[in-house]
Protein backbone atom coordinates (compact mmCIF):
# COMPACT_ATOMS: atom_id res chain seq x y z
CA UNK A 1 0.00 0.00 0.00
CA UNK A 2 2.78 2.41 1.01
CA UNK A 3 4.60 1.69 -2.25
CA UNK A 4 1.53 2.77 -4.23
CA UNK A 5 1.31 6.01 -2.26
CA UNK A 6 5.04 6.67 -2.75
CA UNK A 7 4.69 6.14 -6.51
CA UNK A 8 1.63 8.40 -6.67
CA UNK A 9 3.45 11.04 -4.63
CA UNK A 10 6.44 11.00 -6.97
CA UNK A 11 4.17 11.18 -9.99
CA UNK A 12 2.24 14.17 -8.64
CA UNK A 13 5.50 16.06 -8.17
CA UNK A 14 6.75 15.11 -11.62
CA UNK A 15 3.52 16.46 -13.08
CA UNK A 16 3.75 19.63 -10.99
CA UNK A 17 0.25 19.02 -9.67
CA UNK A 18 0.23 20.76 -6.28
CA UNK A 19 -3.40 19.92 -5.43
CA UNK A 20 -2.96 16.25 -6.23
CA UNK A 21 0.33 16.16 -4.28
CA UNK A 22 -1.37 17.74 -1.26
CA UNK A 23 -4.21 15.23 -1.48
CA UNK A 24 -1.73 12.33 -1.57
CA UNK A 25 0.16 13.77 1.40
CA UNK A 26 -3.06 13.96 3.44
CA UNK A 27 -4.08 10.47 2.32
CA UNK A 28 -0.68 8.97 3.20
CA UNK A 29 -0.62 10.60 6.63
CA UNK A 30 -4.20 9.50 7.37
CA UNK A 31 -3.15 5.92 6.55
CA UNK A 32 -0.43 6.16 9.18
CA UNK A 33 2.56 6.37 6.86
CA UNK A 34 5.49 8.04 8.57
CA UNK A 35 5.72 11.65 7.37
CA UNK A 36 9.46 11.63 6.83
CA UNK A 37 9.24 8.35 4.92
CA UNK A 38 6.44 9.72 2.77
CA UNK A 39 8.54 12.75 2.00
CA UNK A 40 11.80 10.97 1.18
CA UNK A 41 10.53 7.84 -0.57
CA UNK A 42 7.70 9.54 -2.41
CA UNK A 43 7.88 13.26 -2.95
CA UNK A 44 11.68 13.70 -2.82
CA UNK A 45 12.08 10.83 -5.31
CA UNK A 46 9.76 12.80 -7.60
CA UNK A 47 11.59 16.11 -7.27
CA UNK A 48 14.93 14.36 -7.82
CA UNK A 49 13.64 12.91 -11.08
CA UNK A 50 12.38 16.36 -12.08
CA UNK A 51 15.88 17.75 -11.40
CA UNK A 52 17.48 15.05 -13.56
CA UNK A 53 15.08 15.61 -16.45
CA UNK A 54 15.66 19.36 -16.26
CA UNK A 55 19.42 18.80 -16.41
CA UNK A 56 18.97 16.76 -19.58
CA UNK A 57 16.72 19.27 -21.30
CA UNK A 58 13.72 16.93 -21.16
CA UNK A 59 11.70 19.09 -18.78
CA UNK A 60 11.63 22.86 -18.75
CA UNK A 61 11.79 25.74 -16.32
CA UNK A 62 8.02 26.40 -15.99
CA UNK A 63 7.44 22.70 -15.21
CA UNK A 64 10.35 22.71 -12.77
CA UNK A 65 8.84 25.67 -10.97
CA UNK A 66 5.43 23.98 -10.82
CA UNK A 67 7.01 20.84 -9.38
CA UNK A 68 8.96 22.91 -6.84
CA UNK A 69 5.75 24.69 -5.80
CA UNK A 70 3.98 21.35 -5.35
CA UNK A 71 6.93 20.06 -3.35
CA UNK A 72 6.86 23.07 -1.08
CA UNK A 73 3.14 22.58 -0.45
CA UNK A 74 3.52 18.95 0.64
CA UNK A 75 6.61 19.77 2.69
CA UNK A 76 4.52 22.29 4.63
CA UNK A 77 1.73 19.74 5.16
CA UNK A 78 4.08 17.00 6.35
CA UNK A 79 6.22 19.38 8.40
CA UNK A 80 3.12 20.51 10.29
CA UNK A 81 2.61 16.95 11.60
CA UNK A 82 6.01 16.88 13.32
CA UNK A 83 6.24 17.83 17.00
CA UNK A 84 6.95 21.52 17.53
CA UNK A 85 10.61 20.95 18.45
CA UNK A 86 11.27 19.01 15.28
CA UNK A 87 9.17 21.18 13.04
CA UNK A 88 11.82 23.68 12.19
CA UNK A 89 13.03 23.65 8.64
CA UNK A 90 15.91 21.36 7.78
CA UNK A 91 18.09 24.44 8.01
CA UNK A 92 18.34 28.05 6.92
CA UNK A 93 20.16 28.68 3.66
CA UNK A 94 21.24 32.08 2.40
CA UNK A 95 21.77 32.22 -1.36
CA UNK A 96 23.03 34.81 -3.80
CA UNK A 97 24.92 35.43 -7.02
CA UNK A 98 28.18 37.23 -6.26
CA UNK A 99 28.99 40.87 -6.96
CA UNK A 100 29.59 41.72 -10.61
CA UNK A 101 27.63 38.73 -11.81
CA UNK A 102 24.06 39.11 -13.09
CA UNK A 103 23.34 35.46 -13.86
CA UNK A 104 20.71 34.20 -11.49
CA UNK A 105 18.57 31.66 -13.34
CA UNK A 106 20.57 28.73 -11.99
CA UNK A 107 20.62 30.15 -8.50
CA UNK A 108 16.84 30.67 -8.62
CA UNK A 109 16.45 26.98 -9.48
CA UNK A 110 18.72 26.06 -6.58
CA UNK A 111 16.58 28.19 -4.25
CA UNK A 112 13.42 26.45 -5.46
CA UNK A 113 14.87 22.98 -4.87
CA UNK A 114 16.15 23.92 -1.43
CA UNK A 115 12.69 25.19 -0.47
CA UNK A 116 11.11 22.10 -1.97
CA UNK A 117 13.31 19.97 0.29
CA UNK A 118 12.26 21.71 3.46
CA UNK A 119 14.96 24.33 3.88
CA UNK A 120 14.16 27.89 4.83
CA UNK A 121 15.74 29.99 2.11
CA UNK A 122 16.64 33.63 1.80
CA UNK A 123 17.58 34.53 -1.76
CA UNK A 124 19.60 37.74 -2.01
CA UNK A 125 19.33 37.83 -5.80
CA UNK A 126 22.26 38.83 -7.95
CA UNK A 127 25.25 41.18 -7.76
CA UNK A 128 25.70 40.58 -4.02
CA UNK A 129 28.93 41.90 -2.39
CA UNK A 130 30.82 39.55 -0.02
CA UNK A 131 30.15 41.77 2.98
CA UNK A 132 26.40 41.75 2.35
CA UNK A 133 26.36 37.95 2.37
CA UNK A 134 27.77 38.12 5.90
CA UNK A 135 25.45 40.87 7.14
CA UNK A 136 22.41 39.03 5.81
CA UNK A 137 23.59 35.68 7.20
CA UNK A 138 23.89 37.22 10.64
CA UNK A 139 20.41 38.77 10.44
CA UNK A 140 18.82 35.61 9.00
CA UNK A 141 20.53 33.18 11.35
CA UNK A 142 21.73 31.14 8.39
CA UNK A 143 23.34 27.74 8.71
CA UNK A 144 24.64 27.68 5.16
CA UNK A 145 25.80 30.47 2.86
CA UNK A 146 25.59 29.49 -0.79
CA UNK A 147 27.21 31.67 -3.44
CA UNK A 148 26.90 31.33 -7.20
CA UNK A 149 29.27 32.67 -9.88
CA UNK A 150 28.92 32.10 -13.60
CA UNK A 151 32.03 33.93 -14.71
CA UNK A 152 35.73 33.26 -14.26
CA UNK A 153 36.05 36.97 -13.52
CA UNK A 154 33.51 36.93 -10.67
CA UNK A 155 34.30 33.64 -8.95
CA UNK A 156 37.04 35.48 -7.03
CA UNK A 157 34.27 37.05 -4.94
CA UNK A 158 33.66 33.58 -3.48
CA UNK A 159 37.26 33.65 -2.25
CA UNK A 160 36.71 37.17 -0.92
CA UNK A 161 33.67 35.89 1.01
CA UNK A 162 35.81 33.22 2.69
CA UNK A 163 38.40 35.84 3.57
CA UNK A 164 35.80 38.24 4.95
CA UNK A 165 34.29 35.47 7.07
CA UNK A 166 37.70 34.68 8.52
CA UNK A 167 38.43 38.35 9.13
CA UNK A 168 35.13 38.71 11.00
CA UNK A 169 35.86 35.57 13.05
CA UNK A 170 32.73 33.92 11.60
CA UNK A 171 34.22 31.20 9.44
CA UNK A 172 33.28 28.43 11.87
CA UNK A 173 29.79 29.79 12.39
CA UNK A 174 28.58 29.09 8.85
CA UNK A 175 29.02 26.34 6.31
CA UNK A 176 29.78 27.73 2.88
CA UNK A 177 28.84 26.20 -0.43
CA UNK A 178 29.93 27.38 -3.87
CA UNK A 179 28.53 26.68 -7.33
CA UNK A 180 28.39 28.00 -10.89
CA UNK A 181 29.70 26.97 -14.31
CA UNK A 182 33.43 27.75 -13.81
CA UNK A 183 33.46 26.58 -10.18
CA UNK A 184 34.88 23.17 -9.26
CA UNK A 185 35.58 21.04 -6.21
CA UNK A 186 39.24 22.05 -6.54
CA UNK A 187 38.29 25.74 -6.45
CA UNK A 188 36.16 25.13 -3.34
CA UNK A 189 39.11 23.40 -1.68
CA UNK A 190 41.54 26.11 -2.71
CA UNK A 191 39.49 28.98 -1.26
CA UNK A 192 38.39 27.08 1.85
CA UNK A 193 34.68 26.66 1.06
CA UNK A 194 33.03 23.79 2.92
CA UNK A 195 31.28 22.34 -0.11
CA UNK A 196 30.96 22.52 -3.87
CA UNK A 197 27.78 21.55 -5.69
CA UNK A 198 27.65 20.84 -9.39
CA UNK A 199 23.90 21.31 -9.64
CA UNK A 200 20.81 22.03 -7.55
CA UNK A 201 20.25 18.38 -6.63
CA UNK A 202 23.80 17.94 -5.38
CA UNK A 203 23.50 21.21 -3.47
CA UNK A 204 20.51 19.88 -1.56
CA UNK A 205 22.20 16.55 -0.83
CA UNK A 206 25.39 18.19 0.42
CA UNK A 207 23.45 20.72 2.49
CA UNK A 208 21.59 17.87 4.19
CA UNK A 209 24.90 16.18 5.01
CA UNK A 210 26.38 19.38 6.40
CA UNK A 211 23.33 20.11 8.51
CA UNK A 212 23.45 16.60 10.01
CA UNK A 213 27.02 17.23 11.15
Amino acid sequence: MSEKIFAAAAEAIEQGDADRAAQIAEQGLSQGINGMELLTKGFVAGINKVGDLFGEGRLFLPELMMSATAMQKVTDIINATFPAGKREARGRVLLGTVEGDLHDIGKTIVAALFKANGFEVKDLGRDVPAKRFIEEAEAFGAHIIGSSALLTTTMVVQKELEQELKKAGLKDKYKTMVGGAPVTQRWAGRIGADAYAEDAGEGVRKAMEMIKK
Partner: protein
Amino acid sequence: MKDKILIRMGDGERVTLSADEIKEDIRAGTQDAARRGRIPEMTAPEQEQLFEIMADPSRVVGVSPGEEVIVTDDGCSMSFYSGQDGGGVGVPMSRMQAILTYERACGADTTSMGHSDYSYKPVKPIINYEMNEYYNISMMTTAPFFYGAQPNLGLYYRPDGPCPNPAELLPAGKIKEARAAQEEACEHLKKDLVFVGKKLAGVGCEGLNFDTCGSAGDADFLAALLALRELRQEVPQMPIIMGSSGEFVIGMHGEVTFDGRRLAGMYPHEQVKVVEAAGACIYGMAVNTNTSESTAWNLARAVTFCKAAVEAADIPVHVNVGMGVGGVPMMEQPPVDSVSRVSKSLVQIGKADGL
Protein backbone atom coordinates in the same frame (compact mmCIF):
# COMPACT_ATOMS: atom_id res chain seq x y z
CA MET B 1 53.73 5.16 -24.40
CA LYS B 2 54.24 6.79 -21.04
CA ASP B 3 52.38 5.38 -18.03
CA LYS B 4 51.04 8.79 -17.15
CA ILE B 5 49.64 11.15 -19.75
CA LEU B 6 49.41 14.88 -19.22
CA ILE B 7 45.96 16.26 -19.93
CA ARG B 8 43.69 18.86 -18.33
CA MET B 9 40.49 19.10 -16.40
CA GLY B 10 37.57 21.16 -17.72
CA ASP B 11 38.73 24.15 -15.68
CA GLY B 12 42.17 23.94 -17.28
CA GLU B 13 44.06 22.39 -14.38
CA ARG B 14 46.90 20.13 -15.57
CA VAL B 15 46.57 16.55 -14.41
CA THR B 16 48.20 13.27 -15.33
CA LEU B 17 46.05 10.22 -15.92
CA SER B 18 46.86 6.67 -16.93
CA ALA B 19 45.93 5.37 -20.37
CA ASP B 20 43.15 3.29 -18.82
CA GLU B 21 41.74 6.29 -16.98
CA ILE B 22 41.66 8.35 -20.16
CA LYS B 23 40.01 5.54 -22.10
CA GLU B 24 37.42 5.20 -19.36
CA ASP B 25 36.76 8.95 -19.47
CA ILE B 26 36.29 8.80 -23.23
CA ARG B 27 33.87 5.89 -22.86
CA ALA B 28 31.90 7.66 -20.12
CA GLY B 29 31.84 10.95 -22.06
CA THR B 30 30.46 9.47 -25.25
CA GLN B 31 27.91 7.44 -23.27
CA ASP B 32 26.75 10.60 -21.51
CA ALA B 33 26.23 12.45 -24.80
CA ALA B 34 24.48 9.47 -26.38
CA ARG B 35 22.12 9.10 -23.44
CA ARG B 36 21.25 12.79 -23.31
CA GLY B 37 20.90 13.36 -27.05
CA ARG B 38 19.52 9.89 -27.81
CA ILE B 39 22.17 9.56 -30.49
CA PRO B 40 24.80 6.87 -31.24
CA GLU B 41 27.96 6.58 -29.14
CA MET B 42 31.37 6.86 -30.76
CA THR B 43 32.47 3.52 -32.17
CA ALA B 44 35.37 1.61 -30.57
CA PRO B 45 37.83 2.64 -33.35
CA GLU B 46 36.74 6.29 -32.95
CA GLN B 47 37.29 6.10 -29.21
CA GLU B 48 40.74 4.66 -29.85
CA GLN B 49 41.47 7.46 -32.34
CA LEU B 50 40.44 10.06 -29.78
CA PHE B 51 42.65 8.40 -27.19
CA GLU B 52 45.63 8.59 -29.57
CA ILE B 53 45.02 12.31 -30.05
CA MET B 54 44.76 12.88 -26.28
CA ALA B 55 47.88 10.81 -25.61
CA ASP B 56 50.03 12.43 -28.30
CA PRO B 57 53.13 13.69 -26.45
CA SER B 58 53.35 16.83 -28.60
CA ARG B 59 52.17 20.03 -27.01
CA VAL B 60 50.35 21.08 -30.18
CA VAL B 61 48.65 18.67 -32.57
CA GLY B 62 47.00 19.23 -35.95
CA VAL B 63 45.18 17.59 -38.81
CA SER B 64 46.99 16.07 -41.77
CA PRO B 65 47.51 18.16 -44.93
CA GLY B 66 44.33 18.21 -46.95
CA GLU B 67 42.08 17.88 -43.90
CA GLU B 68 42.22 21.55 -42.94
CA VAL B 69 38.87 23.33 -42.40
CA ILE B 70 37.70 26.92 -42.42
CA VAL B 71 37.72 28.85 -39.15
CA THR B 72 34.87 31.33 -38.86
CA ASP B 73 35.94 34.28 -36.76
CA ASP B 74 34.11 34.81 -33.47
CA GLY B 75 35.29 38.21 -32.35
CA CYS B 76 39.00 37.32 -32.41
CA SER B 77 40.03 40.84 -33.36
CA MET B 78 38.35 42.10 -30.17
CA SER B 79 40.89 40.04 -28.23
CA PHE B 80 43.57 42.48 -29.37
CA TYR B 81 42.05 45.63 -27.96
CA SER B 82 39.76 44.47 -25.15
CA GLY B 83 41.10 44.13 -21.61
CA GLN B 84 41.63 41.03 -19.52
CA ASP B 85 38.03 41.09 -18.29
CA GLY B 86 36.92 40.64 -21.88
CA GLY B 87 39.39 37.84 -22.49
CA GLY B 88 41.64 40.22 -24.42
CA VAL B 89 45.22 41.37 -24.21
CA GLY B 90 44.64 45.13 -24.10
CA VAL B 91 46.78 46.22 -27.06
CA PRO B 92 46.06 49.87 -27.91
CA MET B 93 44.76 49.63 -31.45
CA SER B 94 41.62 50.64 -33.31
CA ARG B 95 38.97 48.23 -34.54
CA MET B 96 40.24 48.55 -38.09
CA GLN B 97 43.85 47.93 -37.06
CA ALA B 98 42.81 44.88 -35.00
CA ILE B 99 40.76 43.38 -37.83
CA LEU B 100 43.47 43.92 -40.41
CA THR B 101 46.14 42.56 -38.05
CA TYR B 102 44.04 39.48 -37.43
CA GLU B 103 43.48 38.99 -41.14
CA ARG B 104 46.97 39.75 -42.38
CA ALA B 105 49.28 38.76 -39.53
CA CYS B 106 47.32 35.80 -38.19
CA GLY B 107 46.22 34.52 -41.59
CA ALA B 108 42.53 34.44 -40.70
CA ASP B 109 40.09 32.62 -42.99
CA THR B 110 37.33 35.05 -42.08
CA THR B 111 37.21 38.22 -40.00
CA SER B 112 34.49 40.02 -38.10
CA MET B 113 33.56 43.07 -36.13
CA GLY B 114 30.98 43.70 -33.44
CA HIS B 115 29.91 46.19 -30.82
CA SER B 116 31.85 45.87 -27.57
CA ASP B 117 28.65 44.88 -25.69
CA TYR B 118 28.26 42.14 -28.31
CA SER B 119 24.45 42.27 -28.26
CA TYR B 120 22.21 43.44 -31.11
CA LYS B 121 20.03 45.74 -29.00
CA PRO B 122 22.73 48.35 -28.21
CA VAL B 123 23.73 48.38 -31.89
CA LYS B 124 20.32 49.74 -32.92
CA PRO B 125 20.81 53.34 -31.71
CA ILE B 126 24.32 53.54 -33.19
CA ILE B 127 23.58 51.66 -36.39
CA ASN B 128 24.70 54.53 -38.65
CA TYR B 129 28.08 54.60 -36.92
CA GLU B 130 28.41 50.81 -37.23
CA MET B 131 27.38 50.86 -40.90
CA ASN B 132 30.01 53.48 -41.63
CA GLU B 133 32.69 51.61 -39.68
CA TYR B 134 31.77 48.32 -41.33
CA TYR B 135 31.85 49.87 -44.79
CA ASN B 136 35.25 51.52 -44.27
CA ILE B 137 36.84 48.38 -42.91
CA SER B 138 35.28 46.15 -45.57
CA MET B 139 37.05 48.27 -48.17
CA MET B 140 40.36 47.09 -46.67
CA THR B 141 39.69 43.39 -45.97
CA THR B 142 40.10 40.51 -48.38
CA ALA B 143 38.78 37.58 -46.34
CA PRO B 144 35.00 37.33 -45.76
CA PHE B 145 34.14 39.98 -43.18
CA PHE B 146 31.22 39.32 -40.81
CA TYR B 147 29.26 41.48 -38.39
CA GLY B 148 28.52 39.53 -35.22
CA ALA B 149 26.60 39.89 -31.96
CA GLN B 150 24.32 37.92 -29.67
CA PRO B 151 20.51 38.19 -29.70
CA ASN B 152 20.53 38.33 -25.88
CA LEU B 153 16.81 38.37 -25.05
CA GLY B 154 17.61 39.24 -21.44
CA LEU B 155 18.10 42.87 -22.46
CA TYR B 156 14.39 43.15 -23.22
CA TYR B 157 13.28 42.36 -19.66
CA ARG B 158 12.96 44.85 -16.82
CA PRO B 159 15.02 46.66 -15.61
CA ASP B 160 16.98 46.64 -18.88
CA GLY B 161 13.99 46.52 -21.23
CA PRO B 162 10.23 47.02 -21.56
CA CYS B 163 8.91 43.52 -20.78
CA PRO B 164 8.15 41.95 -17.39
CA ASN B 165 11.01 39.77 -16.15
CA PRO B 166 10.35 35.99 -16.28
CA ALA B 167 13.12 35.42 -13.72
CA GLU B 168 10.87 37.23 -11.23
CA LEU B 169 7.55 35.87 -12.50
CA LEU B 170 8.47 32.17 -12.60
CA PRO B 171 9.53 31.83 -8.94
CA ALA B 172 6.26 33.59 -8.04
CA GLY B 173 4.35 30.86 -9.89
CA LYS B 174 3.18 33.27 -12.60
CA ILE B 175 3.92 30.90 -15.42
CA LYS B 176 1.36 32.22 -17.89
CA GLU B 177 2.61 35.76 -17.37
CA ALA B 178 6.25 34.65 -17.67
CA ARG B 179 5.51 32.94 -20.96
CA ALA B 180 3.62 36.00 -22.26
CA ALA B 181 6.55 38.24 -21.31
CA GLN B 182 8.95 36.01 -23.26
CA GLU B 183 6.70 36.03 -26.31
CA GLU B 184 6.49 39.83 -26.16
CA ALA B 185 10.26 40.18 -25.76
CA CYS B 186 10.81 37.72 -28.61
CA GLU B 187 8.87 40.01 -30.94
CA HIS B 188 10.97 43.06 -29.93
CA LEU B 189 14.19 41.11 -30.40
CA LYS B 190 13.18 39.79 -33.80
CA LYS B 191 12.44 43.32 -35.00
CA ASP B 192 15.84 44.56 -33.81
CA LEU B 193 17.69 41.67 -35.44
CA VAL B 194 15.94 42.34 -38.74
CA PHE B 195 16.51 46.09 -38.46
CA VAL B 196 20.25 45.76 -37.84
CA GLY B 197 20.60 43.02 -40.46
CA LYS B 198 18.88 45.04 -43.18
CA LYS B 199 20.89 48.16 -42.41
CA LEU B 200 24.17 46.27 -42.59
CA ALA B 201 23.08 44.52 -45.78
CA GLY B 202 22.64 48.03 -47.18
CA VAL B 203 26.39 48.66 -46.91
CA GLY B 204 27.28 45.34 -48.50
CA CYS B 205 27.65 43.21 -45.36
CA GLU B 206 29.44 40.02 -46.38
CA GLY B 207 27.88 37.99 -43.60
CA LEU B 208 25.91 38.34 -40.40
CA ASN B 209 26.54 36.22 -37.30
CA PHE B 210 23.71 35.45 -34.88
CA ASP B 211 26.01 34.28 -32.16
CA THR B 212 25.15 32.33 -28.97
CA CYS B 213 21.44 32.06 -29.77
CA GLY B 214 19.24 30.68 -27.01
CA SER B 215 21.41 31.95 -24.16
CA ALA B 216 18.24 33.39 -22.59
CA GLY B 217 16.14 30.36 -23.45
CA ASP B 218 13.96 29.00 -26.20
CA ALA B 219 12.24 32.33 -26.95
CA ASP B 220 15.69 33.83 -27.59
CA PHE B 221 16.41 30.99 -30.04
CA LEU B 222 13.02 31.51 -31.69
CA ALA B 223 13.60 35.24 -32.23
CA ALA B 224 16.85 34.46 -34.07
CA LEU B 225 15.12 31.85 -36.26
CA LEU B 226 12.26 34.20 -37.14
CA ALA B 227 14.63 37.07 -37.92
CA LEU B 228 16.78 34.76 -39.99
CA ARG B 229 13.81 33.67 -42.08
CA GLU B 230 12.69 37.27 -42.62
CA LEU B 231 16.18 38.46 -43.57
CA ARG B 232 16.55 35.57 -45.97
CA GLN B 233 13.50 36.94 -47.80
CA GLU B 234 14.43 40.61 -47.55
CA VAL B 235 18.18 40.44 -48.20
CA PRO B 236 18.83 37.02 -49.76
CA GLN B 237 22.33 37.98 -50.87
CA MET B 238 23.62 38.31 -47.29
CA PRO B 239 24.87 35.01 -45.74
CA ILE B 240 23.88 34.41 -42.11
CA ILE B 241 25.52 32.15 -39.55
CA MET B 242 23.43 31.01 -36.60
CA GLY B 243 25.22 29.59 -33.61
CA SER B 244 23.78 28.11 -30.46
CA SER B 245 24.70 28.74 -26.84
CA GLY B 246 24.67 25.21 -25.45
CA GLU B 247 24.15 21.58 -26.25
CA PHE B 248 20.40 21.88 -25.77
CA VAL B 249 17.99 24.79 -26.03
CA ILE B 250 17.05 25.81 -22.51
CA GLY B 251 13.30 25.76 -21.94
CA MET B 252 12.70 29.05 -20.17
CA HIS B 253 9.32 29.17 -21.93
CA GLY B 254 9.02 25.51 -22.79
CA GLU B 255 6.32 25.72 -25.44
CA VAL B 256 7.49 27.99 -28.26
CA THR B 257 7.72 26.31 -31.65
CA PHE B 258 9.22 26.94 -35.07
CA ASP B 259 7.57 25.25 -38.05
CA GLY B 260 5.55 23.25 -35.54
CA ARG B 261 8.61 21.91 -33.68
CA ARG B 262 9.13 22.65 -30.01
CA LEU B 263 12.50 24.32 -29.55
CA ALA B 264 13.08 23.63 -25.85
CA GLY B 265 15.30 20.63 -25.29
CA MET B 266 16.57 20.44 -28.87
CA TYR B 267 20.06 18.95 -29.12
CA PRO B 268 22.52 19.91 -31.92
CA HIS B 269 21.34 17.30 -34.43
CA GLU B 270 17.81 18.71 -34.00
CA GLN B 271 18.84 22.38 -33.77
CA VAL B 272 20.63 22.22 -37.11
CA LYS B 273 17.45 21.22 -38.91
CA VAL B 274 15.46 24.26 -37.76
CA VAL B 275 18.43 26.57 -38.33
CA GLU B 276 18.71 25.16 -41.83
CA ALA B 277 14.96 25.54 -42.43
CA ALA B 278 15.14 29.19 -41.35
CA GLY B 279 17.74 29.82 -44.02
CA ALA B 280 21.15 29.92 -42.33
CA CYS B 281 24.27 29.25 -44.36
CA ILE B 282 26.27 27.82 -41.45
CA TYR B 283 25.19 26.30 -38.13
CA GLY B 284 27.51 26.94 -35.21
CA MET B 285 27.07 24.25 -32.58
CA ALA B 286 28.10 24.50 -28.95
CA VAL B 287 28.62 21.78 -26.36
CA ASN B 288 29.06 22.76 -22.73
CA THR B 289 32.34 21.91 -21.03
CA ASN B 290 32.00 20.38 -17.56
CA THR B 291 34.72 21.93 -15.41
CA SER B 292 34.83 18.95 -13.04
CA GLU B 293 35.57 16.37 -15.74
CA SER B 294 38.70 15.80 -17.82
CA THR B 295 39.17 17.16 -21.33
CA ALA B 296 39.02 13.54 -22.55
CA TRP B 297 35.51 13.17 -21.08
CA ASN B 298 34.41 16.57 -22.38
CA LEU B 299 35.86 16.08 -25.83
CA ALA B 300 34.27 12.64 -26.19
CA ARG B 301 30.91 14.30 -25.55
CA ALA B 302 31.59 17.13 -28.00
CA VAL B 303 32.68 14.72 -30.74
CA THR B 304 29.61 12.54 -30.19
CA PHE B 305 27.23 15.49 -30.48
CA CYS B 306 29.18 16.85 -33.46
CA LYS B 307 29.03 13.59 -35.41
CA ALA B 308 25.26 13.39 -34.99
CA ALA B 309 24.76 17.03 -36.02
CA VAL B 310 26.98 16.73 -39.10
CA GLU B 311 25.19 13.57 -40.19
CA ALA B 312 21.81 15.30 -39.86
CA ALA B 313 22.87 18.56 -41.52
CA ASP B 314 22.52 19.76 -45.08
CA ILE B 315 24.49 22.95 -44.33
CA PRO B 316 28.06 23.25 -42.95
CA VAL B 317 28.44 22.70 -39.22
CA HIS B 318 31.12 24.80 -37.51
CA VAL B 319 31.79 23.83 -33.91
CA ASN B 320 32.38 26.50 -31.29
CA VAL B 321 35.80 25.91 -29.73
CA GLY B 322 35.94 28.95 -27.49
CA MET B 323 36.40 29.12 -23.75
CA GLY B 324 34.24 26.59 -21.93
CA VAL B 325 32.64 24.94 -24.98
CA GLY B 326 33.37 22.07 -27.33
CA GLY B 327 35.73 20.42 -24.87
CA VAL B 328 37.91 23.54 -24.49
CA PRO B 329 38.64 24.24 -20.81
CA MET B 330 36.92 27.12 -19.05
CA MET B 331 39.90 29.49 -18.98
CA GLU B 332 40.30 33.12 -20.00
CA GLN B 333 43.14 32.13 -22.34
CA PRO B 334 42.37 28.57 -23.48
CA PRO B 335 45.62 26.54 -23.60
CA VAL B 336 46.88 25.57 -27.04
CA ASP B 337 47.43 21.92 -26.05
CA SER B 338 43.71 21.53 -25.38
CA VAL B 339 42.45 23.75 -28.20
CA SER B 340 44.54 21.95 -30.82
CA ARG B 341 43.39 18.52 -29.57
CA VAL B 342 39.78 19.68 -29.58
CA SER B 343 40.13 21.06 -33.11
CA LYS B 344 41.81 17.94 -34.49
CA SER B 345 39.31 15.57 -32.87
CA LEU B 346 36.23 17.48 -33.96
CA VAL B 347 37.45 17.64 -37.54
CA GLN B 348 38.89 14.15 -37.91
CA ILE B 349 36.38 12.17 -35.85
CA GLY B 350 33.39 14.48 -35.55
CA LYS B 351 33.67 15.43 -39.25
CA ALA B 352 33.07 19.10 -38.47
CA ASP B 353 33.00 21.30 -41.57
CA GLY B 354 34.65 24.18 -39.75
CA LEU B 355 35.38 25.69 -36.37
